[in-house]
C-alpha cells in the first residue's frame, strides 16, 4: 500500500515537481505567482495552495540564471502567537520574518555571504569588518528587537519603515544583480483574526515596488482587507478550487494520486474505476481529503467506500467543523448555526430533490444560493464552512428567481453522498448529472436566520484580541494527555495551558516517574494545544 504525502510541508521543496499533476487551472495559478503583478491564491484547507507556491518557487529557481528573479517562500503559520496591544507589533513581526527568510534563502543559494556571529573566522576581525552586514540584515535585527520585547516601549523611530524595507531590497537587487524578489507567503492571514488580516493586506500593498512582488495564499474566509488594499486592483485573486464539472476532473484527480501511488494501488484504481470516481467526486476537488480517504479504503471495494463515506463525510468533517467552536469561542454561535443549517436543512432538501430528479432522469444538484442581503453573520457562518471544506464558494452576483442577486455555494459532494444509506449505489449518477443551474434558494430574510440573529444579539462579545490569553488560561484538562500525566502536572502546580507552555522539560522532570520522553510529550501537548487552537 502506498504511503501518501498529505501535506506539502512533508515534501522536500526540490522534489515537489515530481508530484505535480498539472491542470490548466494550476498553470494559471503558477503563472500568476511568477508574474510581476501580485497574486493571492484562495482555497480551503488541503486544496493545494502551499503546493502551488512551492511549484512556483521551484520554477523560478530553475530559471534564475536566465531571468534573475529570486523566489522566497515564507510561512506565517505561527503568526497567531503574536498578540500585543501595540498595533505595530504584528507588522514588525511580519517584516522581520520576511527579512530573515530572504537572507537565509539568499545565503542558501550562495548569493549572499554570511557573517557567523560567534565563530572567529580564520582571518580574524579584519575580514569580518570587510564583509559587513547588508541593509536588509540590519533592518531585520531592528524588527526582531522590536517584536521580541512586546512589553517594552519601543522607540518607533528606531524601527525601520516599510520604505526602508523596500530600499533595502532595492539595494540588494542592485548589488546581487537580481531583477526582482518574489515573496510567496503561505498561511498569510489568519482566518479568525480580522485585525491580522487588515494589517497583512496593508503591508502587502505597501511592499510593492519594481524589484519586489508579494504573493500570498489565503483561506476563502479571509475578507478583511483593511483600508488601503483593494482586491482585484492590488492583486489578482486566483481561486484554486477544482471544478467537479470539468470533464477531465476525475482523470486529473487520478493523476494526482498516481504521482504517489505504487502499482498495487494503481491497479486497484484501474479495476474499480467507478468507486475511485466516487471518492474523487466526494472530496470535491480537495487532494488531501482524496488521499486520506483512499488510504482508508485501499482496496476500493464498495463496502470500504461506504464505510469511508460514513466515517469521513458524516463524522470527521463535521467534528472538525464543530471543534472550531471550542477553539474560537467568540464564533461559537456562528459555527454551530452553520452546521445545523447545512446538515439539517440544506443537505436534506437537496437530497430529496435529487432523489426525484434521478427517478425522472433529470439533472441533479449540489448547489444552493444565498441572497446578497442576507445577514452578515449568516455569510460569516458560510465563510467558516468554506474554510472547513464543507462548502465551496462559487460565483457571486448570480441572478435567481425574480432576478434577485446572490452568491452560489456548492455543498461538499461527500457530505451529500454520505446521507444515503448506501452511498455507492447512486453517488456516481448524482455526480455525473450535476448542473449548477439547479440551486435551492435562501432569500434575504429566510426564517432560519432568525435563530442565529437572536443568539448573536444576546451574546455579542468582542473576542478578537483576547483569545490567546483565554487559551493560555484554560485548565490543563483540555490538553491531550493521560489522566496520570495531568495528575503529575497538578503535583507541580502547573494548572493552566500557559503554565505548561512556560515550563521547561527539566522542570517537568521534577515530577516522579517523569523522564525525558514523558516531559517532552507533556510540553508538546501544550504547544500543540495553543497552536492548534489558534491556527485552526
Amino acid at each position, binding site marked *: 500500500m502506498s504511503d501518501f504525502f498529505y501535506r506539502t510541508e512533508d515534501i*522536500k521543496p526540490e522534489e515537489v515537481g515530481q508530484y505535480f499533476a498539472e491542470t490548466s487551472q494550476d498553470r494559471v495559478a503558477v503563472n500568476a505567482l511568477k508574474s510581476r503583478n501580485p497574486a493571492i491564491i484562495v482555497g480551503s484547507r488541503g486544496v493545494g495552495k502551499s503546493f502551488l507556491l512551492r511549484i512556483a518557487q521551484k520554477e523560478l529557481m530553475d530559471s534564475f540564471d536566465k531571468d534573475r528573479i529570486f523566489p522566497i517562500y515564507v510561512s506565517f503559520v505561527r503568526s497567531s502567537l503574536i498578540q500585543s496591544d501595540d498595533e505595530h507589533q504584528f507588522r514588525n513581526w511580519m517584516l522581520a520574518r520576511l527579512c530573515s527568510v530572504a537572507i537565509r534563502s539568499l545565503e542558501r543559494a550562495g548569493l549572499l*555571504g554570511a*557573517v557567523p*556571529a560567534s565563530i572567529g573566522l580564520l582571518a580574524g576581525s579584519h575580514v569580518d569588518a570587510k564583509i559587513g552586514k547588508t541593509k536588509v540584515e540590519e533592518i531585520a535585527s531592528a524588527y526582531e528587537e522590536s517584536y521580541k520585547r512586546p512589553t517594552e516601549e519601543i522607540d518607533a523611530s528606531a524601527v525601520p519603515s516599510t520604505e526602508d524595507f523596500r530600499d533595502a531590497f532595492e539595494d540588494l537587487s542592485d548589488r546581487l544583480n537580481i531583477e526582482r524578489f518574489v515573496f510567496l507567503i503561505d498561511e498569510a492571514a489568519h482566518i479568525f483574526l480580522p485585525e491580522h488580516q487588515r494589517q497583512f493586506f496593508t503591508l502587502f500593498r505597501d511592499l510593492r515596488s519594481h524589484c519586489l512582488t508579494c504573493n500570498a495564499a489565503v483561506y476563502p474566509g479571509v475578507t478583511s482587507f483593511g483600508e488601503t488594499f483593494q482586491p482585484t486592483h492590488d492583486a489578482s485573486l486566483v481561486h484554486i478550487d477544482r471544478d467537479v464539472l470539468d470533464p477531465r476532473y476525475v482523470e486529473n484527480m487520478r493523476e494526482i494520486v498516481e504521482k504517489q501511488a505504487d502499482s498495487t494501488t494503481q491497479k486497484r484504481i484501474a479495476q474499480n474505476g467507478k468507486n475511485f470516481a466516487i471518492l474523487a467526486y466526494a472530496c470535491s476537488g480537495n487532494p488531501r481529503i482524496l488521499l486520506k480517504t483512499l488510504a482508508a479504503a485501499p482496496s476500493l471495494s464498495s463496502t470500504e467506500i461506504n464505510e469511508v463515506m460514513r466515517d469521513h463525510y458524516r463524522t470527521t468533517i463535521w467534528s472538525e467543523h464543530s471543534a472550531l467552536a471550542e477553539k474560537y469561542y467568540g464564533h461559537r454561535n456562528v459555527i454551530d448555526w452553520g452546521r445545523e443549517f447545512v446538515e439539517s436543512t440544506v443537505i436534506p432538501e437537496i437530497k430529496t430533490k435529487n432523489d426525484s430528479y434521478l427517478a425522472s432522469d433529470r439533472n441533479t444538484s449540489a448547489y444552493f444560493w444565498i441572497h446578497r442581503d442576507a445577514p452578515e453573520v449568516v455569510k460569516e457562518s458560510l465563510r467558516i464552512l468554506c474554510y472547513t471544506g464543507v462548502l465551496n464558494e462559487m460565483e457571486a452576483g448570480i441572478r435567481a428567481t425574480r432576478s434577485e442577486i446572490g452568491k452560489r455555494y456548492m455543498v461538499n459532494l461527500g457530505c451529500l453522498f454520505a446521507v444515503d444509506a448506501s452511498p455507492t449505489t447512486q453517488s456516481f449518477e448524482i455526480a455525473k448529472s450535476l448542473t449548477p443551474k439547479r440551486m435551492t434558494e435562501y432569500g434575504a430574510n429566510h426564517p432560519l436566520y432568525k435563530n442565529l440573529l437572536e443568539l448573536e444579539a444576546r451574546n455579542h462579545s468582542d473576542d478578537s484580541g483576547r483569545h490567546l490569553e483565554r487559551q493560555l488560561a484554560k485548565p490543563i484538562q483540555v490538553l491531550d494527555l493521560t489522566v496520570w500525566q495531568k495528575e503529575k502536572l497538578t503535583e507541580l502546580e502547573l494548572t493552566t495551558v500557559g503554565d505548561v507552555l512556560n515550563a521547561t*522539560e527539566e522542570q517537568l522532570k521534577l515530577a516522579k516517574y517523569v523522564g*525525558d*520522553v514523558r516531559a517532552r510529550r507533556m510540553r508538546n501537548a501544550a504547544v500543540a494545544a495553543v497552536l492548534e487552537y489558534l491556527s485552526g
Partner: protein
Amino acid sequence: MDVAEYYRGLSNSRTEIMAKCIASSEAFAMHTTSHNFLKDYGLMLSVMSGPEKSVFDQACREYQYSLEAIIRGNYRHAFSSLRLSLELFIASVYFSAHLMKLKLWSAGTDDLHWATITDNDKGVFSHAFLGAFNAELGTYRTQYAKLASSVYRECSEYVHGNPITHEDSALNIEFDFDKTIAFHERADTVRLCIIFVFSVRYLSELDGIRLNIIEPVVMDALGTIAEVQGIFGATGK
C-alpha cells in the same frame, strides 16, 4: 634554487586557482553556501552550554580550514579537513554524554576514533543514545547513521588517495571544477548529519528562547520530518 621563489610560485598558482573558482558562478555559489553554513554552526554553538562546546568550536575551525583549502586548490587537504571537522562535530555531541572521555581526550590520554563515536551500540546513532535524548527521532536513526558513514568514507577516499582520487596526485596545480563541486556536495551532507545529531542531542532540553534561535537552522535541514515540525509547532493544518 631560490626556495623563497619556489614557494612564491606555488602561492601564485594557488591565487590563480582561487580566482578561477570565484569566476565560476556555479562553483563560487556553492562555496558561498558552504561558507554560510558557518553561520548555522555559530547559532548551534550559541545554544550549547556544556564543556563539549570547545570541541564544537574546534570542529568549526577545522571546517574553515577545509574551505580555505578547497578554494585554493588543495583538494586532498580540503577533504581531509572536512572529514576531521565531521569527526570533531560528532565527537562534541558524543562527549556531551561522556564527560570522562572528553577529559581524557583533552588531556591527550585517549584518542578519538570514528568507530567509537558512531558505534552501533554506544555511539551517537545508537538506539540507546536516541532513546536517552530524543526517542521521537528514532525512526531516522539508521538512515542518518548510514549517511554519516558514507560521507566519512567518501572523504577518506580522497585522504588516503584511493584509485578514484589518483589524478589528484598529478604534479600540475590547477583549478578542478569537478572536485570543487564534489567537495561542496559532501560539505552539505556533513551539515545535514551534524544538524541531525545536534537535534537528537539538544532539542529536548532547549528552552523557548534557544529553540527560537535554532529553529531556522533545524527546520531548513530537517523541516520535512513530522516530529521536527511538531517540536517547532510548524504544523499549521
